[in-house]
Structures are given as structure tokens and as C-alpha cells.
């Protein structure tokens, strides 16, 4: 028996040797894993600033209430206890129970965000008696301007199962599962999510078996690396004003610096408050946004494709000049023109009379452009359109652009593969191409790029939205090849646009007066047909349902003698004639851009002693003799007060 006991003791000693001597390292690691716990510290998300350093997306403190799932935790009882401290309604309760059931073991689930200080301290005092309950202070994304940047910047929101699916090889798995973490869902927040995210840190804590922190070990902490700061080219003042002037209308405004391609504003209206998405939208709230007919969730600046209407005429003009058309060859406009078996009408029923190119742009004469288009053909128009930026998407760092369509003969062949009879370009399609209708479709960004390229007069500018990421400057939009047009031709077309806005007989004269002294705007109106007018007696749209009204477009740049800013405005269903809805809004936004520019300001405050020769407008084109030299235009009073947005209804309704 002594032998048995001795053998038993020896066996125990042997086992001890195995565990304590041979496998000691393994168990020491396991022991340290028990003893120390690294708690993830989410990094502060990088700020998104405008070009002047104004915060467009920042972080604010957020008092959160979290429960950590545990084997011996009763979620129902815990929520019952908590509902005595903070309000938890039944709908929220059932959602939380589902969340808790789904959460992995030991993963905290956020019960409440954004508690008041009172709620936070109430819970914090009781937390020790409530197993698994913690109240902590995290950070939450905040968009100080609410809706103005919602489409460009997007928003962050809870990480969904689909996000997790997509982020399978993302190295930050732990961070993605953290209850306080929000992932970029749209716009810049999504496109630059990795850069903005930063690197998580950790706090080292000694914990007991119940997971309670026994001791913090600050020396073992790993600090979080904040996300990179992203600076946009946008200007908060211009952007805010742009959204403001859109009012209840649906549409988009894009403002560009014509010297370098920087986007100063890019607004889609109506908008939505991105902050609501950070918190998590309720079902009815989301439904209301998604089902509203003016589509607030759609980014109309990038993804809304419209026929450009008459805003396309300067491009056609360029195509004509490039094709060798003499701008002084006149076309007689009698209000209608019979071609190809149908009557083509000018928006001016009574006709414009004899028109050269300059006048045709100024008056937006349809007859002139029908015939000119027919003379040069669709391919010449298409190549000019492409050179101006239509039919392409730009790398502005965020997704969502729809490139629209620039039709030509080649396109017809491709588009009608199954219908050989339709593969040829019918001459009857060309006249409407000349006035920016038909298959042609563009977006607001392209319109702004076209205007900026025209205003720049040299470079085929690319738009730029992201100015810098983490202090590293993104390439400028001006480092690009020149436009395939001569300066002479560009100047001629610009002259026409100057007349639109500054000739008293121009289609948008009254709506284009900036009231900034000799700093003046050049522009072009446009109307995009929504329906066929054949069966409708009047194109005047006051009596027509909103959905059936024409889209109202306006593009402009200023100052016309030394261009700096280009603007494109699309007002969906804004009614006939770009001047009514588009031009006044363009003017307001342009005023903000100009007044923020110190050099322009100096020029307004200290006008040049002598009026300069109007070189840009009528001096550039040899032999050209516009009837209405722009210097004759009486400058409006230099006032900074905003003129009324929408002027009294204009008789005649030019488009």
C-alpha cells in the first residue's frame, strides 16, 4: 500500500513537472491572456474641412450606455433595470433584445447614444450594481451644416452586415465590430473611409474573472492614431448659399474655379440632414425621404442626367467655328423653319430676324442652331461636346457620377445593334441636337466643367473636389492639356454669353445683374423639355403639374472680362426659360463667390479709374460687330444686398 501511495505521489510529481516545467510557457501566455485585457479605443475620425479650414464634418463627445453580453446575463432583466434610469420605449426594447441576442459573447451593445449628462451620471452611479452595464464617453460624427454637404460628404452610420461582408479583408476587423464605430456610407466619408478612420488604440487593464477592471495600466496603453484630415476644395459659404437659394426646388448647383478646376460648391437640392443617418434613421423617416417626389437622397449634381437645352448652344457654336463656319453668315429666323417634313419652331414665335452667331447665342435663337447643326453634322458637335467635358466622368474622388450621353453616328450604330434600320443617323435628328435636345444628356457637374473650360479659355480643366488628404495635396485640375479650340473661337462664344447677361436684350439680362460694379457675369440660359408639346397649346407652364414642367438651366461665369468662377444651375421642373429659375440663383451664388475673393472685392471697392476697352467681348474677333457693346450696359448699383431671388414673371419667357 505504501508502494501504491508512493507511485501515486510520483505520478502527481511527474504531472507537475510536465505542466510547470515543460509546458510552462504556454500556460504563462494563457495566464497573461486572462489577467490582461486590451480594450479597443476607437480612433477619432479625421476631420473634413472646407478650403478655408471650416469644419464640415467633425466629432463631438457622446455619452453612451452599453451592455456587455455575458453568459449569466439576463438581457430582459438588465433592460428592465435600465429603463428605470433612461427612457427605453417598447420598440427600442425589442430591437435591443434582438441586437443583444445577435452580438457575440463579451461584445458590448450600445443601448443608448447621446445621453444627457444627467442620464449619463445616473447610469454611471448605478453601473457597478448592474452587471455588464457600462456608460462611457465616445465620439460621434457631427455635420455642422446639416444638409448642405450631405451629398458630397455623405455620412457615417452603423456597420451593417453587408458592410462586414464587403470588408472581409479589412485589417480593422476588431474596430469594425466595435459598437461605437461608424463606417462611411456615402460620398467622401465612404470614398476616403480608410484614410479618415485612423488606427485604433488600446487601453491595457488588469481584469478579474468577472471582467471587472481591477487596475489600469496606462504604461501598456497603445494610443489611437486619429484619422487623416481631409480638406475639400468646397467653400462653406458658397455651398450654404447655394442650398439656401434652391429653397424648396429640386435640382443642383455646381460652382467651379475656372483657373484651377476646384469645385467651390456642389449642391443637390432638396437635401437631408446627414446627422440623422449617424444616429440611425427610423423606418418612417427613411420612407418619407425615399418616397418624396423631389428625391432628396439622390445626388442630382452628379447622377441627374438632363438634356442641356440651350446651355449647349455655346458648344455648338464652338463646333461650328471649328468646322469653319463664318460666324457672320446670317440666318433668317421667322419663328419657324420647315425641314424634313416637319416644322421646326423657334422659342420666339415671331422670329428673331437675321441672326449671326453672336446674336444667336445672345437671343438663344433656335432656328440659327437648327440650321448650323445641320451644316456641320452630329459628329462635329459630338467632338466639341466631348472636348468640353460632356459624356465623361471625372475623377473627383467620390463615386456616383452618371456620364450621360453624347450621341454621334458611331453611337447610333452601337445602340441599335439589333435594329439595323435604325443604325444610320437620320438628318432629322441633327437640328434638335443643335439646341441641346434629343438623345443628348448631361449632368450639372459637366455643365459646370463646360462653362469653366469656356471661361478659362485655354485649359481642358478637370474638376477637383479633394484638396488634400492628411496634408498631402491632390493634383490640381489645371495640370491638363489645352482645349482643341482656338482662343479666337473661344473668345467669340464667350462674347455671346456676355451679351446674354449684359445686353439689355439678352435672354437673361435682368436676372444676371450682379450689382457689383464693373464685375459682371456672362451666361447662357437653357430649358430641357420634359414632354412633347405637340398636343399642348401653350408651353407656358404656370398651369401645369410640377412633374410636367420643363427643367430650367443656367450656366454662367464671372467676371466676364477676367473669369474666375463658373456656375451651373439646374432647377428640375423649374419651368420654361433658364432665366426665370436658374439665372437668379446663379447670380446669388456667384455674388457670394465673388465677394469672398479679396482681389475681386478690391476691384469692386476701388473701381479702375477709367473704363477699360471691352477687349474680351467685341475686340477679339476681327471684323465682328456686335450691335450691343456691353459697355453700354448701365452697371447696377454696387450693393451687396441680395436681390430678390425670383423676379417678377418675365413676358416673352426666353429660354
Amino acid at each position, binding site marked *: 500500500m505504501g508502494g501504491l501511495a508512493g507511485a501515486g505521489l510520483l505520478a502527481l510529481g511527474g504531472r*507537475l513537472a510536465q*505542466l*510547470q516545467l515543460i509546458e510552462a510557457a504556454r500556460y504563462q501566455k494563457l495566464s497573461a491572456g486572462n*489577467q490582461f485585457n486590451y480594450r479597443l479605443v476607437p480612433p477619432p475620425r479625421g476631420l473634413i474641412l472646407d478650403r478655408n479650414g471650416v469644419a464640415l464634418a467633425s466629432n463631438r463627445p457622446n455619452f453612451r450606455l452599453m451592455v456587455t453580453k455575458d453568459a449569466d446575463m439576463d438581457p430582459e432583466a438588465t433592460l428592465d433595470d435600465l429603463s428605470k434610469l433612461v427612457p427605453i420605449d417598447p420598440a427600442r426594447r425589442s430591437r435591443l433584445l434582438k441586437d443583444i441576442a445577435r452580438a457575440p459573447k463579451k461584445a458590448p451593445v450600445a443601448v443608448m447614444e447621446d445621453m444627457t449628462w444627467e442620464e449619463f451620471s445616473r447610469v454611471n452611479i448605478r453601473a457597478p450594481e448592474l452587471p455588464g452595464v457600462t456608460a462611457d464617453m465616445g465620439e460621434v460624427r457631427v455635420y455642422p451644416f446639416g444638409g448642405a454637404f450631405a451629398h458630397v460628404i455623405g455620412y457615417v452610420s452603423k456597420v451593417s452586415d453587408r458592410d462586414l461582408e464587403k470588408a472581409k479583408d479589412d485589417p480593422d476587423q476588431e474596430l469594425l465590430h466595435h459598437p461605437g464605430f461608424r463606417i462611411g456610407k456615402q460620398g467622401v466619408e465612404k470614398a476616403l473611409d480608410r484614410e479618415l478612420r485612423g488606427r485604433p488604440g488600446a487601453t491595457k487593464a488588469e*481584469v478579474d474573472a468577472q471582467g471587472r477592471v481591477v487596475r489600469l495600466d496606462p504604461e501598456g496603453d497603445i494610443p489611437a492614431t486619429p484619422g487623416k484630415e481631409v480638406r475639400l476644395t468646397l467653400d462653406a459659404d458658397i455651398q450654404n448659399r447655394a442650398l439656401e437659394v434652391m429653397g424648396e426646388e429640386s435640382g443642383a448647383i455646381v460652382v467651379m474655379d475656372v483657373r484651377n478646376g476646384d469645385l467651390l460648391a456642389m449642391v443637390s437640392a432638396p437635401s437631408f440632414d446627414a446627422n440623422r443617418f449617424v444616429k440611425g434613421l427610423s423606418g418612417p423617416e427613411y420612407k418619407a425621404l425615399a418616397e418624396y417626389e423631389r428625391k432628396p437622397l439622390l445626388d442630382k449634381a452628379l447622377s441627374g442626367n438632363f438634356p442641356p437645352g440651350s446651355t449647349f448652344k455655346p458648344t455648338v457654336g464652338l463646333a461650328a467655328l471649328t468646322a469653319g463656319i463664318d460666324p457672320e453668315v446670317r440666318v433668317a429666323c421667322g419663328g419657324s423653319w420647315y425641314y424634313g417634313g416637319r416644322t421646326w419652331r423657334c422659342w420666339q414665335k415671331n422670329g428673331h430676324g437675321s441672326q449671326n452667331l453672336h446674336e444667336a447665342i445672345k437671343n438663344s435663337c433656335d432656328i440659327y442652331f437648327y440650321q448650323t447643326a445641320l451644316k456641320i453634322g452630329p459628329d462635329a458637335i459630338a467632338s466639341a461636346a466631348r472636348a468640353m467635358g460632356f459624356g465623361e466622368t471625372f475623377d473627383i474622388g467620390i463615386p456616383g457620377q452618371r456620364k450621360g450621353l453624347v450621341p454621334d453616328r458611331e453611337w447610333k450604330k452601337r445602340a441599335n445593334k439589333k435594329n439595323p434600320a435604325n443604325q444610320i443617323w437620320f438628318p432629322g435628328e441633327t437640328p434638335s441636337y443643335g439646341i441641346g435636345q434629343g438623345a443628348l444628356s448631361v449632368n450639372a457637374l459637366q455643365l459646370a466643367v463646360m462653362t469653366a473650360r469656356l471661361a478659362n479659355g485655354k485649359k481642358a480643366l478637370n474638376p477637383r473636389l479633394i484638396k488634400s488628404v492628411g496634408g498631402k495635396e491632390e493634383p490640381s485640375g489645371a495640370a491638363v492639356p489645352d482645349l482643341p479650340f482656338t482662343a479666337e473661337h473661344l473668345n467669340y462664344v464667350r462674347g455671346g454669353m456676355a451679351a446674354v447677361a449684359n445686353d439689355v436684350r439678352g435672354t437673361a439680362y435682368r436676372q444676371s445683374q450682379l450689382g457689383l460694379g464693373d464685375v459682371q457675369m456672362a451666361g447662357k440660359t437653357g430649358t430641357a423639355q420634359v414632354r412633347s408639346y405637340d398636343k399642348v397649346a401653350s408651353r407656358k407652364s404656370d398651369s401645369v403639374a410640377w412633374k410636367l414642367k420643363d427643367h430650367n438651366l443656367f450656366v454662367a461665369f464671372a467676371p466676364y472680362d477676367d473669369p474666375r468662377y463658373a456656375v451651373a444651375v439646374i432647377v428640375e421642373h423649374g419651368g420654361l426659360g433658364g432665366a426665370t429659375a436658374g439665372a437668379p440663383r446663379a447670380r446669388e451664388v456667384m455674388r457670394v463667390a465673388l465677394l469672398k475673393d479679396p482681389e475681386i472685392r478690391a476691384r469692386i471697392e476701388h473701381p479702375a479709374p477709367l473704363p477699360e476697352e471691352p477687349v474680351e467681348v467685341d475686340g477679339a474677333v476681327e471684323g465682328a460687330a456686335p450691335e450691343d457693346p456691353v459697355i453700354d450696359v448701365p452697371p447696377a448699383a454696387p450693393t451687396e444686398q441680395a436681390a430678390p431671388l425670383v423676379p417678377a414673371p418675365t413676358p416673352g419667357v426666353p429660354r
Partner: protein
Amino acid sequence: MTLSGGLSRPGERDRPIIKFMEIDWTLCLVLALIAGAGALMLFSIAGASWEPWADKHLLRFGIYFVMMIILAMVDLRVWFTMAYPIYGIALLLLVAVELVGDVSLGAQRWLQLGPVRFQPSEIMKIGVVLALARYYHGLSADSARLSWKLLIPAGLIGVPTLLVAHQPDLGTAVLIALPGLAVMVLAGLSLRLIIAGIVAGLAALPPFIFFVLHDYQRNRILTFMDPEKDPSGNGYHIMQSKIALGSGGLLGKGFGLGSQSQLNFLPEKQTDFIFATLAEEFGFVGCVSVLFLYGVAIFMALRIASISHSHFGRLAAAGVTATFALYVLINGAMVMGMAPVVGVPMPMLSYGGTVMLTVMVGFGLVQAVRVHRYTEVTSGKGSLM
């Protein structure tokens, strides 16, 4: 030992002072060292505090030590006479527990008798050894080998074992049955019967595990087979205990620095798993030292059994030693992940009065066997008086 040579005069050995001198003080020292190690560990895991365990542990040891000395001087013939009565009382109490006992931690083990609350199964651990030793004392060697008379010791062991197992307290049942069987073997059981018994026992094990045991008992055994299968449930205790042991390494993490026990990762750290605490803080060296002390105690107790002149004394001392050794081996194996988790503490080291009382009473009996090693014990009643 030194005095024993000159103690040949009749009656001389009955003098209390002589009896006192005849006590094996080395064994007492070893027991005190073990209890002291226990107090040290209890002091450590309480966060360097005598409260709430270490002080009581030492106080109990002191009281029980005095009791052991007194029991050591009780004449072996009194033990012999009281063997059956003690067994009988223990059996009655076990039945009483079955009928009116307190339910604690899901098992019916405790009996409230006035102000005293105790587990009758502990008395039975000593009782069964005494009764078997008493029975075999008057049995011929042939009968002890193989005869119908073996049904009596089998019953003496079987009845209390089943009663305790039904409480259910598997650990104690084992500690009643195995020492009992050890006494039977030492009394000269036929080798064939031993082998047959072992075979039958092994064959009965699987049906026993799957049909007789409670769910929690079965889970403990299944978990023991594969502790990693369920590390947060049943396997948790075994896993954490192994981590505590293994992470102690050669020299341990140091006194009061065992993270597994101090941070409560170790379950039952002051009772069943105190050996893991010791292992964590004092490492292989500390563990082997303590196991050595246990080995010395077992060896000395067995030696006492071997020098006893009476059959009763030999069997009783050996049976108590078997109980003690089984405590150490079962607890050690459990803590080291070699046996399922059963509620068997490490004697003298673990906190808890009942087991320490049982063990100290047992050593009181062992010492009594030593003190009265020359005493003739006869079956007759009158010889005592």
C-alpha cells in the same frame, strides 16, 4: 521511541505522561507544516489578510491538534469497543440526512443538530475503517481470503457508500468505498477476487456513468475527458486550474502575485483548488515540497500501522492512511487535470473545517495505534475494563 526500551513493566505504558511521550511528534510537525502552508496560501489569496480564512484555518488546526493528542491517548481497546457503535451512529445519521438533511449547493449533505451543522458522511469515513478493522480482527485469514463472510464487510462498505452517493456526493462516496476496499485487501483478500472485482468495476463504469449519475456529475466526467471542448462551462475549472499550475513554472510567480487566484479566474481557490494557488505562487519547487510533506506523513502513518501488534490497530491505521492518501491523490489529480472535478479538498491545506476534523480524528486514531502498539486487543468486552 527512545523511552520505549525501558517500558516493560506492566501498566507503565498506561501512564498518561508516557502515552504523551509516545506520540509521534515528527508526524505532528509534518501535519503542522502542511496546515501552516495552507494558512500561508489562505493569507495570500485573501489579499495578504488573515481574514477571512487564514486565521480560522490556524485556529481550527490548533483546536483539532489538541483533540488529536487527546484521541491519541484513548486506549486502543476503547477504539475497538466503540468501532461498531460509531459506525452504527454514522449510518443512522446518514439515513437521517437522507430524510431531513439540508440541501446545500444542490446536494443533501448537512445535518443540523442543535447549534452544530455537520456532514455525517465525514464521520462515516472513520466509521467504516473502524468497523472493518473491528470485523477483520476476529476473522480467520482463510475467511478473509474468500468466503461467504466477506459479504459482511462488503455490506459495511456498500450501504454507506450508496447512501452518500445518493446525496449526491461522489467524492465522499469514493473516500468511503476505496479505503474500505483497501482494508479488505490488506486483510488478505484473494488475488482472484481482487482481479475479478477490478474487472467488474471497470465493466460497470460506463453504464454507471450514463444511467446512474446526475447530469452535472456526468458532465464533469465527460468534460474531464476533453476540457477544451467547453472552456467557459464545465471545462472552465480544469482549464483555469491547469493555467494556474503551468504558469507557476519552476519557482512560481511569487507570494501574493498569483494572478489566476488573486483575480478569481481560479474557482474554489480557497478550498478544492488551493493546491493550484500554491502551484501558481510557489511553482514546481513549492509543489514538490508540499507533496513531499504529504508523502512523509503517509509513510510515517503506514510505518505506525506496520509496527502495531494488533490486527485491529494495523488495519485501522492503514485504513485511515489510505483515506488520507486518497484525499491527496484525488485532489492532486483533479487540480492537475488528471481526474474529473469532484468535491475532494486537499487535506490540511484547503480551507474548511469538516475535512480537517475528519483527517485530524483519523490521525488521532493513527497516533493511538502507535501509543498503544503493544496493547493486546481481544474481542471480549470485559478485557477493556
